[in-house]
């Protein structure tokens, strides 16, 4: 277990270092001067020089990288060029939208995917199975932002059950959750389709194992065998996908937040992009990538809990 943890932790650290170097290089090193990019065509030489000093672009690439990472580690994400406030403050504001949205969507996707995946696997080859598999094919093919528009069309424009966008803040938790519902459903649908398919095939694999036959021979019903033995073993591939999905949810949320005008991290990145505020883009991207890599690490730890073989390894 200790060795497993150690190798996982090492790979977590390595991933973070490489990720930060890539992001830094993309934004600050490879061709083009970030300062002139940010100021546009009409910048004077004095203004550019002032901005370079302000951004800390005067040192060597290595110095700048270390300065940036050092800052990130101590909670200093730099100062936004357009908002004139610390990026950390912006992030704290926005994370209150993005994180609940991701969790809401992940919960919905799991709640939808588990039962339908289990039904499809245990009724393999029946019309229920075919229907579920057909529906999930469709779910995978639908772009989440288009699904979001259809949801708006149906539930906000036609039925008027939800508002088409915006976020009222957490002072009224019910209203906040309601505002996040359509975005979460839009995010959850493609994820649930993938997850249900994985759940089905993982469960089918385990149901063919000898220990399931033994359990059935012992007198357990099919349902009991699934609940007591098959599900736990099917969870490993399912967990992998849930971990991967978090990364897709983060990316998806960037776009969905824009569909629904939600003031989250994704919208912050896009505002950074349109306002050419590279400090915001760089730090927020790093934060999102950090979140994704951390979740991958936590999923690896979860394996060890689900699969005792890994603990000994």
């Amino acid at each position, binding site marked *: 277990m200790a060795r497993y943890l150690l190798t996982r932790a090492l790979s977590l650290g390595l991933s973070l270092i490489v990720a930060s170097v890539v992001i830094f290089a993309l934004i600050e090193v490879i061709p083009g001067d970030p300062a002139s990019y940010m100021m546009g065509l009409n910048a004077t030489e004095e203004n550019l020089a002032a901005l370079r000093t302000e951004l800390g672009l005067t040192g060597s690439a290595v110095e700048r990288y270390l300065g940036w990472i050092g800052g990130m580690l101590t909670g200093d994400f730099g100062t936004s060029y357009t908002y004139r406030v610390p990026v950390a403050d912006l992030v704290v504001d926005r994370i209150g939208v993005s994180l609940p949205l991701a969790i809401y969507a992940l919960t919905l996707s799991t709640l939808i995917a588990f039962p339908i995946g289990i039904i499809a696997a245990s009724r393999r080859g029946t019309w229920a199975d075919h229907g579920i598999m057909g529906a999930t094919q469709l779910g995978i093919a639908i772009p989440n932002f288009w699904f979001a528009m259809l949801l708006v*069309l149906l539930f906000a424009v036609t039925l008027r059950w939800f508002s088409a966008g915006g976020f009222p803040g957490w002072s009224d938790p019910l209203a906040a959750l309601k505002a996040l519902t359509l975005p979460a459903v839009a995010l959850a649908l493609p994820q649930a389709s993938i997850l249900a398919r994985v759940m089905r095939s993982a469960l089918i694999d385990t149901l063919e194992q000898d220990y399931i036959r033994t359990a059935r021979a012992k007198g357990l019903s099919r349902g009991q065998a699934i609940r007591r033995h098959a599900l736990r073993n099917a969870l490993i591939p399912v967990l992998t996908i849930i971990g991967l999905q978090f990364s897709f949810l983060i990316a998806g949320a960037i776009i969905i937040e824009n*569909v629904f005008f939600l003031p989250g991290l994704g919208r912050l990145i896009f505002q950074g*992009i349109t306002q050419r505020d590279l400090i915001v883009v760089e730090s927020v991207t790093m934060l999102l990538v950090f979140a994704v*890599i951390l979740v991958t690490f936590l999923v690896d730890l979860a394996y060890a809990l689900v699969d005792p073989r890994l603990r000994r390894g």
Partner: protein
Amino acid sequence: MTRLPPALVLGAALSGVFLIAALVSLVWVPHGVTGVSIATRLQPPSATHWLGTDQLGRDLLSMLMVGAQTSIAVALLAVGIGISLGVPLGLAAAANRGGWLDEIIMRGNDLIFAFPSLVIAILITARYGPSASNAILAIGIFNIPVFARVARGAALPLWTLDYILAARTAGKGRFRISAEHILPNIANLLIVQATIQFSLGILAEAALSYVGLGAQPPVPSWGRMLAEAQTMIYTHPMLAVLPGFAIVLTVLGLNLMGDGLRDVLDPRLRRGRA
């Protein structure tokens, strides 16, 4: 001749429609898509404009046809990047199993996998300017590890087979064996994977151009048509519905085709997919 799986036929028919539409649009469209005609804006479907016109009076059917061209070109080139770089990497990793090259390639792949791809795609297009070519690059980069992994995984078991051993005793080098014996034998798997990556590429292109980071105006693209239609969703919902259908049907067609191809090309899987 065995019967083709229905998924393959249906998938090929669906994606074929859009492929043909894209090809036809290279030489002919019902109406030009660059001209603005305020007089004919937002018209309902008619004999002249089969699907109606958009907010700038452009023929919607023509826009969809040229949009298919954009989507397919971007996704196809991105798959091309993935295959041309990923497959050699994967083959090299398999040929030097356990060596430093294998280790570097596979760890590098793990790292790219850990990245949220769309975030990096957004980063690239944001920093180097939104354009179709940057979108291709951004999507293509993430196809590299996918193909490297598939190629390596499929090539590894082949290296233990007798005919490869025979080729080695005949004095062929690892490179020649990979090119002459391994590659033809893993081509089926690569084709299936290419179909899947193609459909993911179409989705990614749509997402990027929806947020304005893909092909730029006046080049029509499905994603941007959706973005432009969003403000008019209250008054002209069809403008937002049709490009979405185009995306869904193309992607669905490609996915079905991928499943069908897998069944045809890899008989070992047929048993498990009853």
